């Protein structure tokens, strides 16, 4: 139950992270990865920054984030690095466009996708796409 409570937190007033994760076991990771609110924020930024235009559900296998396969490592720090620094050939570096905390939240969301069932992800994408904030997911 305690874990559930942590996942239900709304950490609006908690101090924000200012630095990238220090390795895969950084003590700050659970505050993002295991918190539903932070993951949902990440999902929103994922949509706003247009990540879904390449990483859409059911798209190209190499770009699929839902299959649990990670070409550059699936640990938190590895995924964070992929987003922040970009990956050849096509993935741009978002480290210069997203604030640090946003990178944490998007990382948490991206690593959460494989745990979601397709219908839930599709339903949430529908709402976020209707928001009209980014280029759509």
């Amino acid at each position, binding site marked *: 139950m305690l874990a559930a409570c942590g996942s239900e937190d709304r950490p609006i007033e908690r101090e924000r992270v200012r630095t990238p994760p220090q390795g895969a076991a950084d003590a700050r990771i659970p505050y993002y990865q295991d918190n539903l609110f932070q993951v949902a924020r990440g999902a929103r930024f994922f949509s706003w920054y247009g990540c879904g235009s390449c990483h859409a559900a059911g798209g190209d296998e190499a770009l699929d984030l839902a299959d649990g396969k990670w070409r550059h490592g699936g640990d938190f720090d590895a995924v964070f690095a992929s987003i922040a620094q970009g990956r050849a050939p096509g993935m741009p570096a978002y480290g210069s466009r997203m604030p640090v905390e946003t990178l944490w939240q998007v990382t948490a969301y991206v690593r959460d996708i494989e745990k979601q069932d397709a219908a839930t992800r599709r339903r949430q994408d529908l709402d976020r*796409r209707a928001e009209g904030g980014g280029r759509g997911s």
Partner: protein
Amino acid sequence: MAALDLNAPQADLAQDAAALDAIWRDPPGIRGFLTTVDHKRIAARYLVTTLALLVIAGILALDMRLQLSQPGLERMGPQAYNEAFTLHGSTMLFLVSVPVMEAMAIWLVPLMLGQRNLAYPRLTAYSYWLYLGGVLMLWVPHALGITPDLGWFQYPPLSGPAYGPGHRVDIWAQMITFTEVAALAASVNVAVTILKMRPPGMTLARMPLFLWAMLVTSVMTVLALPAVMLATSLLIADRLVSTQFFSPGAGGDVLLFQHIFWFFGHPEVYIIFIPAVGFVSAIVETFTRRAVFGYTVQVLAIISVGLLAFGLWVHHMFAVGLPRLGASFYTAASMAIALPIGLQIFSWIATIASGRPRFDTPLLWVTGFIATFVIGGLSGVMTASAPLDLQLTDTYFVVAHLHYVLIGGALFPLFGALTYWFPKATGRIMSEGWGKIAFWLVFVGFNIGFFPMHLLGLMGMPRRIYTYPAEAGWGTLNLVATAGMLIASLGAAIIVANAVISLRWGRRAGVDPWGGATLEWSCASPPPPWNFAATPVVASLTPGWEPPPRAVMTGLSLENREVLVTSVGDAVPEHRQPSPGPSIWPLLTALATALLFVGSIFTPWAVVWGSIPVAAALIGWFWPRTRPEEAQAEAP
């Protein structure tokens, strides 16, 4: 068949008391507590629960007022504030206002009808247990840190799957399912009792106004509450099994939620207000020593309020951009409802003016109600105007308006009613001196607390903000509002203390301390488990003021629980109806229902598998049991 016996007043039937006691008394101890179907015991626990929650919600309100008393305070953060107003609003609207009126009806309706119980005694018990489930549904997760935080109406898309992660929204939505099923059960119970169990002679035209009020309320409840359960169930479906009712991206509609919600939400205001109207009429009648002026007008006004209430809901949605013609229609309808309510208010004023008013505490509360409710009604007419509402919506003006109508319009009459019927329920009278002091503190404190909010709203202060900058210039009025709330809280504390102390040391009441005109004042205080030794026979609107001897009807069984069933229109006795005794099945069924409701937050399969325990419990509940008298009846 029952016999009309004009020569046997209640006192002469004392020898029946021992026999009645044997069949109507509950089993002792915890078994009796869990199995009772006595409407008075169930109403008492309903009332204690609702009033305890009223106090808790009031403390939350005080907490919020302290937070807003000065600009820029940080004693509460935004999240804590969101949770506070959500808990306050959800508790007050779903767990206090409607249930407290049901509680009063469950207690009062059989007494006012000279009956021994409601039509469906076990359903009464089921209503309470399920209602308690709703209370736990909101407050246990709060204790665990999972508190709904989107206000008392949780609109999608904010409450939808994309923006309302976790179970906070589901908890709120399912809390509603609990309380609304409980309220539906209670309403069916009350409506059937009023229609089919009136004492001989109490035709529809001789029905006390409180019963008219509860009848109309019950019918409204049956029509309105399914709408909110539909809204929240669709929301849960959107969140749990990814349906697309409220997803515009898939052709759904977020406004659909608001329409369905307010189709319930506006009638709900009158579901709270109309029982209060019934209290006011009863109190005005007793304390002016005359029958209420304009009985027919009052009845027609209650019915037309009940009808009109279903045609106004869009005034909660003027700001969402609906077609202008539609908005104009709802503006007109919202203003039209002021007419029947105005007629009622004039009728009460005429009653007070032409009677011999005795301003004891209950009538003071009624006077406070009239003054406050008129202000709330006027601000209501203002917000009903679509162009003005566009400016006022989501400001403190709305907060002021809704508290004037809900506290002034429903809670003031409720406090009057609690003072008025306290001696009947407990056998003791609450202190009049402290009662009057408490009234003035609450009345003055309330107006100091909430009137400034009208001005704050006009100055543009939005509702649901946890703090505001000093430059906004709202500091002084907010400080005044907080001071008013503190004064009112002191009055509320005195009411609670007065009730607790009077329960133990209050003056003994006797059967009829106020000289009331309705039937509940002719049974003992507190009423015994069987209420009346014999069914009273009614010949006028004010049977309590008829000169003795008073006719009664005898002939109900002294061996089994029985109640008298009469015809709908003229209350002609039709037959004796066996009335079920204590049973554990309502509690077990409520537990099974709770299992289904709670489970369906987590998995849709709970609806499938959870229905098995519910079905099993219902089979146990309805399993045919032969009664001794039925066995006898078959013999000859």
